[in-house]
């Protein structure tokens, strides 16, 4: 099973300014779980209401799909350097 990313690291460096952010994403997991549990009945009702219009299936599967995409972010790294400027983003 793929776990969601635990840490998000952002570093931005300009000539005289440095900005670093180390975000512990694992601290948000309980809140995400609570939000998923709270929204589940709402999504179920909306799925039934919009099933005939063709939007039911996307609505039902979108939650797990977005969660899978969020988990797949683990390992994503973007590193751009240009003339003393640096932008670094990584999910671990």
């Amino acid at each position, binding site marked *: 099973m793929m776990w969601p990313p635990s840490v998000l690291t952002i570093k931005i460096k300009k000539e005289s300014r440095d900005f670093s952010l180390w975000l512990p994403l694992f601290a948000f997991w309980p809140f995400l779980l609570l939000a998923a549990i709270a929204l589940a009945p709402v999504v179920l009702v909306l799925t039934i209401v919009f099933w005939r219009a*063709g939007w039911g*299936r996307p609505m039902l599967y979108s939650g797990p*799909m977005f969660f899978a995409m969020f988990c797949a972010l683990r*390992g*994503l790294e973007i*590193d751009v*350097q240009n003339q003393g400027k640096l932008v670094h983003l990584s999910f671990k």
Partner: protein
Amino acid sequence: MENNRRQILDMLAEGRIQVEEAERLLSLVSQEGDSEDSGQSTKENRPPSKYLRVCVEPGDDADEDRTERVNIRVPMALIRAGVKLAALIPSQAADSVNEELRKKGIKFDVSSFKADDLDPLIDALHDLEVDVKDGQHKVRVFVE
């Protein structure tokens, strides 16, 4: 390979080829089978591709003040998840997306692309390496 061997033996039985010729053809067929099997076992033993990498570096003729470097690593799982998400697009929305793509000259059906189609493509990309050098930049795209 079994079909080829069967055909050779049938031709020998019908008298269309001689024994020496049948022997030569059978040895050729068995050599092809060995190379296919070793290729197949190489593919099976190969670890699955995990990341798509795009690297841009200054070229050999680049100016000293041009120091752009780009290093991007995209997990293959993210690409797979994106394709699976695209498969959820309802048919009405997919038709309007296809129409917009056609206006841009891209004849592609969004709803026809499935996540199962992606795995053979990713396997084929394992040996792909794009290496572009134009003096100012070096661009490499590869899978690891």
